[in-house]
């Protein structure tokens, strides 16, 4: 088990995590939980950019995706409503 395979294992795990959290983001009925799943998705995406040796993209993703977008979405939920309605 050399260093390269550790890298590959990490990337596979991260991609699985990104897929599951992206699916949960669109499937949660509670929008606050969806905001949290989206925060964890952009967090893992930032680490994926990091592992692909793109530090500038990773900084932008960490700054915008994990902190600011979550805060803005939560403000939006506070101004409107928390539970998603069933489609008519």
């Amino acid at each position, binding site marked *: 088990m050399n*260093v390269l395979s*550790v*890298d590959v*294992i*990490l990337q596979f*795990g*991260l991609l699985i*995590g990104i897929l*599951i*959290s992206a699916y*949960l983001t669109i499937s949660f009925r*509670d929008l*606050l*939980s969806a*905001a*949290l*799943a989206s*925060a*964890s998705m952009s*967090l*893992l995406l*930032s*680490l994926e950019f*990091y*592992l692909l*040796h793109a*530090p500038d993209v*990773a*900084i932008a993703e*960490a*700054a915008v995706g*994990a*902190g*600011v977008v*979550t*805060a803005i979405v*939560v*403000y939006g*939920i*506070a101004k409107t409503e928390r539970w998603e309605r069933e489609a008519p």
Partner: protein
Amino acid sequence: MIVEIFFYSALVVMIGAFFALLRVFFGPSVPDRVVGVDTLNTLIVAGMILLGAAYDRTIYIDIAIVYALLSYIGTLAIARYLQGGLE
């Protein structure tokens, strides 16, 4: 030799991050999920520092600084919403 051990410990830290991610997915209430995201933030900062030492680049550690300072905003916004301070 030393650099490889940083890779392996980053791998172990990421396994811990996977457990925290499971708590985000299955947490019955919203505060449980917030605790999961908070733990995930700390573990990913630790992993970024270890991987920065492993790849031998300083700029990778700067991402960890930005991340540690900004991931806090999301946690605080959700905590503020849960205690009814945003309406």
